[in-house]
């Protein structure tokens, strides 16, 4: 199927910076998020969490809780529905193998041990505060260094977790220039604005769940399995999300607890995690310790990379932060050894967080290349260019569409890179040191099978439906744009419905794959509906287009017309009425083929950053950032730009302030609120600009689109750390770069 040849006359909406079609509903409050589900008089459930990291419950005293007026019941392992163990798999993606509330065992601080169910939110909270849980506690293992159990997974998500090629040890030893450094990144939390929420209701043996999930069908599958139901008996609804970033991607215990509570009380139950609970109830990014060894020639050409990554995981689930993934494919290096290890600790299970693997990996690798540039006395951008990989070194396959060199060029020009003095501490503005840094961004282009339905109604309506999601990213808008172009209808006149497991199948909103997966399915469905409309319009007696051939017709203004005589036109609603079946309904689908056997699909980018540093006060700020991205076709210039700006802001947070701190003795998160877990505020964000090298990747899918959700954060922390080096002359290899680390580094010079 070629994307352009058989395209009907379009209005070219794809690509335009169209305002979000759901914007009005959001700013007026009409958009209903999970916790706003229109369910009359639900009960409210509040979670009670373990306050030890390792041990067991020896007693639960519910008396004071049950004495609170309005408390209906207390759900604990004594009365919870028995649920089978739920090992993670891609059809039922539960993050924790142990279902919640099944036994007295405590595997991490924050584990859900009870839910208090009450007539009001206030009563549920008051009751939860009064629940007395007594524990028998053992000393927890909380630090990856020296952990008793360290595993080396062979594979992770279908990829080799220990990739190797050539003879990296020997090539490293033989190299003229060697870098051997360790980089560390802390635990980080996703912190979407909308906390996770579930409203669960049982109706005639069917379970209906309004849930803030990035994967309605995955959530449905786990719930069905847990309660021994057919999937058709479970419906999961998530029309809007206030961000997710991965913490709503896989399945976590709270929807199960809400459904158990609804079953126990035979009433609908609403459960909203608190901000504090979000730090321990739905995953986080694992800390990483990354040793990187680079061997290169004196002119900065890489000969070997050895990248050893130590992350963490829990005792109840597995997630591997594959920070070494980028190392295997980003640069043209003949000899590579990447290892991933995970230390099993008494902590909650980490999960995917915006660019899992790539975010911390691109930090370490991006810094190491900058160190190489310094060691060789070469401009860092030149080192990146010199090691550019024309084919994917991990597979030997050519890239489908790679324009990274163009990103470097355009970025360097727009940023003014050529005026950068090579030596550190060479730029000042007033009392502040100024530094510039650069690093490479990358993220794989992923795609999954998806379907969509397009329905043209007799009233002229155009409906698009798919079980995909809008995390606040613009999915509603781009799907409307895609259908609009196929049908010749204004995108604002199209009703897009998503986030319902009963809609045509779509994958998890993860891996930046929704646009590339669902977009082509919507295109296919719209095209089928368009063809059917033509078939009716050219064959029905009363149609002004009666007797014309398909190629003599084009779309226009919500209907069809003759190319030669534009006044011969008919609206879609009229065509539907002529067709007599009440509606034109088309199911479209799209799926990857065997192109992955021939080509490697990745997005790329270049991140340029300027920092300013007040050396006396150790005050560091990012004053300027520019990202230039090669992500295939851009479907909406406005929402795409916003995504990238958001990614860069995330990168600034990652570099300078974000850190989830656990109490070193007992494992409780002590930064479980926005006063202690710092994300950038407006005043931290100065000038950010985004450019796209827009080359449609038509080998990937007929729209030529790759994903844009995650690449924006990659490389930012490295570019910032590199800019800090350029400003100060000291290397900071441990994130976040907070004042005490800058002071210590200065003192050590």
């Amino acid at each position, binding site marked *: 199927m070629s994307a352009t040849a058989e395209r009907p006359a379009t209005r070219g909406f794809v690509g335009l910076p169209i305002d979000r079609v759901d914007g009005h509903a959001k700013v007026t409050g009409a958009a209903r998020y999970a916790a706003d589900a229109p369910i009359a008089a639900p009960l409210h459930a509040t979670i009670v969490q373990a306050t030890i990291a390792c041990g067991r419950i020896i007693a639960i005293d519910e008396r004071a809780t049950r004495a609170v007026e309005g408390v209906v019941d207390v759900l604990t392992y004594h009365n919870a529905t028995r649920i089978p163990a739920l090992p993670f798999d891609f059809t039922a993606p539960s993050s924790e193998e142990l279902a919640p509330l099944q036994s007295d065992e405590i595997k991490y601080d924050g584990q859900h041990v009870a839910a208090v169910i009450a007539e009001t939110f206030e009563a549920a909270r008051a009751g939860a505060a009064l629940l007395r849980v007594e524990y028998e506690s053992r000393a927890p293992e909380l630090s990856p260094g020296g952990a008793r159990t360290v595993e080396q997974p062979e594979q992770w998500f279908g990829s080799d977790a220990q990739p190797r090629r050539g003879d990296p040890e020997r090539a490293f030893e033989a190299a003229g220039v060697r870098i051997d450094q360790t980089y560390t990144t802390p635990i980080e939390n996703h912190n979407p604005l909308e906390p996770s929420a579930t409203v669960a209701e049982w109706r005639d043996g069917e379970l209906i769940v309004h849930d803030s999930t990035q994967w309605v069908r995955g959530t449905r599958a786990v719930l069905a399995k847990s309660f021994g139901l057919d999937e058709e008996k479970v419906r999961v609804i998530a029309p809007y999300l206030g961000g997710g970033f991965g913490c709503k991607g896989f399945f976590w215990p709270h929807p199960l607890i809400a459904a158990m509570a609804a079953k126990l009380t035979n009433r609908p139950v609403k459960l909203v995690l608190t901000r504090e609970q979000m730090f321990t109830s739905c995953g986080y990014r694992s800390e990483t310790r990354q040793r990187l060894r680079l061997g290169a020639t004196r002119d900065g050409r890489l000969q070997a990379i050895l990248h050893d990554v130590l992350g963490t995981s829990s005792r109840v689930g597995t997630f591997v932060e594959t920070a070494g993934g980028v190392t295997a494919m980003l640069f043209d290096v003949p000899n590579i050894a990447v290892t991933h290890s995970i230390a099993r600790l008494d902590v909650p299970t980490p999960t995917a967080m915006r660019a899992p693997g790539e975010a911390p990996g691109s930090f370490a690798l991006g810094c190491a290349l900058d160190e190489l540039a310094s060691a060789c006395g070469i401009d860092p951008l030149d080192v990146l260019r010199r090691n550019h990989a024309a084919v994917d070194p991990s597979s030997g396959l050519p890239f489908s569409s790679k324009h990274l060199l163009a990103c470097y060029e355009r970025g360097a020009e727009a940023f003014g890179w050529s005026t950068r003095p090579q030596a550190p501490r060479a730029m000042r503005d007033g009392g502040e040191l100024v530094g510039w840094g650069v690093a490479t961004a990358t993220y794989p282009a992923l795609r999954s099978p998806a379907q969509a339905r397009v329905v043209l109604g007799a009233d002229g309506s155009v409906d698009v439906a798919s079980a995909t999601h809008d995390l606040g990213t613009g999915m509603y808008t781009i799907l409307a744009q895609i259908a609009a172009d196929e049908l010749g209808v204004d995108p604002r006149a199209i009703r897009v419905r998503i986030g319902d497991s009963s809609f045509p199948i779509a994958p998890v909103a993860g891996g930046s794959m929704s646009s590339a997966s669902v977009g082509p399915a919507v295109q296919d469905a719209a095209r089928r509906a368009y063809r059917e409309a033509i078939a009716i319009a050219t064959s029905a007696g009363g149609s002004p287009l009666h007797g014309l051939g398909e190629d003599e017709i084009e779309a226009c203004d919500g209907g069809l017309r003759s190319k030669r005589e534009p006044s011969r036109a008919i609206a879609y609603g009229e065509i539907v009425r002529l067709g007599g079946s009440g509606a034109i309904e088309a199911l479209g689908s799209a799926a990857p083929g065997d192109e992955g056997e021939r080509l490697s699909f990745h997005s790329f980018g270049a991140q340029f950053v300027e920092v300013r540093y007040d050396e006396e006060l150790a005050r560091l700020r990012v004053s300027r950032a520019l990202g230039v991205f090669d992500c295939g076709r851009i479907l909406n210039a406005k929402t795409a730009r916003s995504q990238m700006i958001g990614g860069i802001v995330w990168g600034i947070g990652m570099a300078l302030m974000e850190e989830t701190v656990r109490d070193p*003795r007992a494992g409780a998160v002590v930064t479980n609120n926005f006063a202690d877990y*710092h994300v950038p505020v407006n005043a931290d964000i100065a000038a950010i600009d985004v450019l796209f090298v827009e080359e449609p990747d038509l080998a990937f899918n007929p729209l030529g689109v790759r994903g844009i959700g995650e690449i924006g954060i990659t490389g930012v922390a490295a570019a910032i750390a590199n800019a800090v080096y350029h400003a100060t002359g000291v290397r900071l290899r441990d994130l976040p770069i907070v004042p005490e680390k800058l002071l210590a580094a200065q003192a050590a010079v």
Partner: protein
Amino acid sequence: MNAFRYAQARDAASAMAALAADPRARYIAGGTNVVDLMKEGVERPSLLVDITQLPLRGIDRTATGVRVGALALMSDVADHPAIARDYPVVAQALLASASPQLRNMATIGGNLMQRTRCAYFRDVSQHCNKRAPGTGCAAISGVNRRHAVVGGSEQCICTHASDLAVALLSVDAIVHVRGRAGERTVPLERFHVLPGSTPQRETVLEHGDLITAVELPASAAARNSYYLKVRDRASYEFALVSVAAALNVAGGRIRAARVALGGVAPTPWRAHAAEAALLGRPATGGTFAAAAEAATRGMKGYGQNDFKIVLVRRAVNRALQHVGAIA
């Protein structure tokens, strides 16, 4: 949150009577701190007495300076021309506090009474002598990056969170209190008390005492004052370290000096040694550096917060250069 009663006081006398009748009653002004703590289960009042209808909002000039009503909003005080002109340190400290939304709710009296942000204090499942006397201090050997480097005790090493109080300390503010025995005044420096062996006690106020106003005496030093706040991000964060500096320099010599520190102690902290190193000396870089060094005297870190001592020295130096006009 527990069930609690709420009453709106018509006048100071009825507000105080309501508290006198109930040892678990509390005043509520802007509510930005007390409600927060109630949600966490840290404060569990039986009764909230809303004092926002009392006529204590005025910001008035007096013969000796400015008198700020206890219920004046942080935002109104920050924007008041007399404050900005005669006490720049106070306006700057307020504008560096919290967020515009919070400043539009929060009051001056409430700000002085706000409680520490120590994570262990705010989490009822943790040990904290301030919240639950006798349970121990989890911070001393725990996560203590934001904790005190001076003035703490084996019972408590929290920091006082207010920026305003630090600024007020540098202009010799006086707190007006109405208690059972009538009105009294307390110099701000004696208003907050160090934890010692009773960390649950934070000020000299008795249950039911009502702050009515804060008096700011006019002075040349106050007119030449400056607030410097060092923190991880540019806004909306409590201080890692802050400095309020006020200096009167005449004929090249320092005639009056105040240096107060925030983020370093369980109370707003007056750096007397730094002031002594300034008084009567020439306003030179050498004097300021010596005073900055003196400001750190007696400070001791607990590991994660050692860096604050270095920051204090540098921030005091910077603030003094600013008010000494030799930046």
